[in-house]
């Protein structure tokens, strides 16, 4: 589904990603871990198409197409979704109107007719119950005055509504208490399926107790320095990142 080859990217002239290689297949759950400043969020930003990042080398193929050539909206229309670490508040844009616009723009891209209001409301209700998103928040302005937990739950609700092929969760666990974390994770687990893939970016192992990954990758200094299974996450939790950093530096000095 997604193939990242030797991806280099910089922001403000500073090299952030220094040769990422990663393959994600249908149905898989990949966790990207790493210390602060290792390039985790930069990776998600580059994949989603944030404009201040410049790709200097490498390629990203998503469902057979060159992802890096596409505008952010076309990436979304092709089936990529990024749950933001810091979802934006937009007063004056209602949550429902926003979602309806997004859904219909994606449908139009695939030459499908706009969804009827009745059908849309039915879908809304179904997904809102599925991911346990408070119905009262749906008519409010987008994220305006939402608590941290409500914002993250709204991201998962949008994910459910837009039904992407690949979802990237960018530090969705940051700022969540344990109850909110459980609800968000439960929502994500309900959305897992054989034809969908996930990339979960997190600093802590805690989230991975609830969302169990098939693969864990450790990002350090703009590169994936170790790949393993869920046990790797536990090891990191126990030993921290320092031993990995040392390993990397030893290799470099050899």
């Amino acid at each position, binding site marked *: 589904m997604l193939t990242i080859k030797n991806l280099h990217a910089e922001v403000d002239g500073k090299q952030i990603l220094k040769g990422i290689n990663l393959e994600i297949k249908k149905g898989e759950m990949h966790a990207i871990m790493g210390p602060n400043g290792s390039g985790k969020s930069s990776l998600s930003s580059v994949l*989603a198409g944030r404009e201040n990042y410049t790709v200097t080398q490498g390629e990203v193929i998503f469902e057979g197409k060159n992802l890096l050539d596409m505008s952010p*909206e076309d*990436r979304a229309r092709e089936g990529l979704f990024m749950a933001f670490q810091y979802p934006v508040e937009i007063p004056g844009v209602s949550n429902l109107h926003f979602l309806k*616009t*997004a859904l219909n*723009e994606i449908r139009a891209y695939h030459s499908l007719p706009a969804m009827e209001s009745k059908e849309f409301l039915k879908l809304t209700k179904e997904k809102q119950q599925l991911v346990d998103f408070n119905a009262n928040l749906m008519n409010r*302005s987008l994220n305006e005055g939402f608590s941290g937990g409500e914002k993250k739950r709204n991201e998962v609700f949008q994910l459910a509504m837009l039904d992407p092929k690949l979802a990237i969760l960018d530090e969705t666990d940051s700022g969540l208490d344990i109850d909110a974390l459980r609800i968000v994770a439960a929502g994500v687990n309900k959305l897992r399926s054989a034809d969908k893939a996930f990339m979960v970016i997190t600093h802590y192992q805690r989230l991975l107790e609830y969302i169990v990954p098939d693969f864990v990758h450790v990002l350090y200094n703009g590169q994936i320095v170790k790949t393993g299974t869920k046990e790797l996450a536990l090891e990191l939790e126990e030993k921290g990142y320092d031993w990995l950093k040392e390993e990397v530096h030893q290799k470099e000095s050899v």
Partner: protein
Amino acid sequence: MTSDKSFYEFISNGVPGPEQKVDADNAILPARKLAFGRFKELGLPTVKTEEWRYTNIQRYLKDAFTLAQEEQGTVTAEQLKSAGIPQLDSYRAVLVNGRLQADISTLPTGGKITVSKVSDAAGNPQLQAWFDKHPHLQSQPFAALNAALFADGLFIEAGVNASLDKPLHIIHVYTASANAFIQPRHLIVLHKSATLEVIESAVGINDNAIAFVNGVTEVVLEENAELWHYNIQSTVKNSRHIYHTSTTQKADSRYHHFNFTLPSAELTRNNLSVALTGSNTETNLHGLYLATGTQHVDNHTFVDHLVPNCNSNELYKGVLLDDANGVFTGKIHVHQDAQKTNAFQQNNNLLMSEKANINSQPQLEIYADDVKCSHGFTVGRFSEESLFYLRSRGIGEEAAKSLLVNAFAFDITDQVHIPALQDFLAEKIRQYVAGAINN
């Protein structure tokens, strides 16, 4: 009456007085003569005139114009439709160059609310009492010029306790076969406890000529009267507009005014002023201006608190792009006697290009000590993060920007109490943003 070169020169020096006019409104002639004398005294403003500092009016008057008092013009059903508001259930008054066209209008019947031509109502005691009497008009040269030489306009009178089952929509059609200086003049009088909703919109039919509209509306709200007054300014490209709207509010009256200036005209200058002459009044002034290209939109507002216990609230928001120019001057005068005044003013702007410009100037003159007054001004740029968020959900750049502009305008459009009008405005904003991006 044509100027062959600069209309500015012609109007400053050569324009003949109102006695030259052959009109049926002789009862107004004395008032016209007075106004003409005042105009001669005041003279046309220059950029050195404080109130016209940011709007170089000479630039817009250097072309030749005909004083189009007699130009009748016709309007087709198609043109009328383009001036309409879809789904709006309303009474309708159609004016061509300021003249009411009864045959294509649907006016209220029953007699408690009358809509007539100013020329037909010239002898009406209300018209005689209020015409050109608003204190704030006395120092305005363009208003004086209008009073002296206006073609015609509407006189709307609502009797005691009168109200309508639906809004009155006034459609202004401006036609010009050659460059024309068009001067409509209206007076709205609401007697005690009367209520009315008035929507004004405009359409221009002057592809090959410039229409310069110099309009004046006076509004009188007697005790406990309430007027919802929506002004939608969107006409063709080749038009220039100066409007004066001057309102007098007596005790317990409520005035809700909306100015929607949507792109098209090269120049829009609004002078909106309200004199509060009775206590316990409520005044809400809402403005939304969207300007693109080299358009120039200038809003001058003035709320004059003359007596105690009045509330005024003003919110003007602007979206400017390309080389567009915006001006906002908001004056609040709280007189010494006007204790317990609440007066608030806010002007927020969104600049969508490097070259767009806004000059905003609050002018608060407060001579009473027990008052609550505030003002604020902001200018911001588009939030790139908001735009990216919307785009990352599959919403195209154009639709995303349209959503954000609509969101910015929401405080204003949300105050509109007529759903069809709300929808119409949202669609206009969408078209505006789409047009601006695809340019």
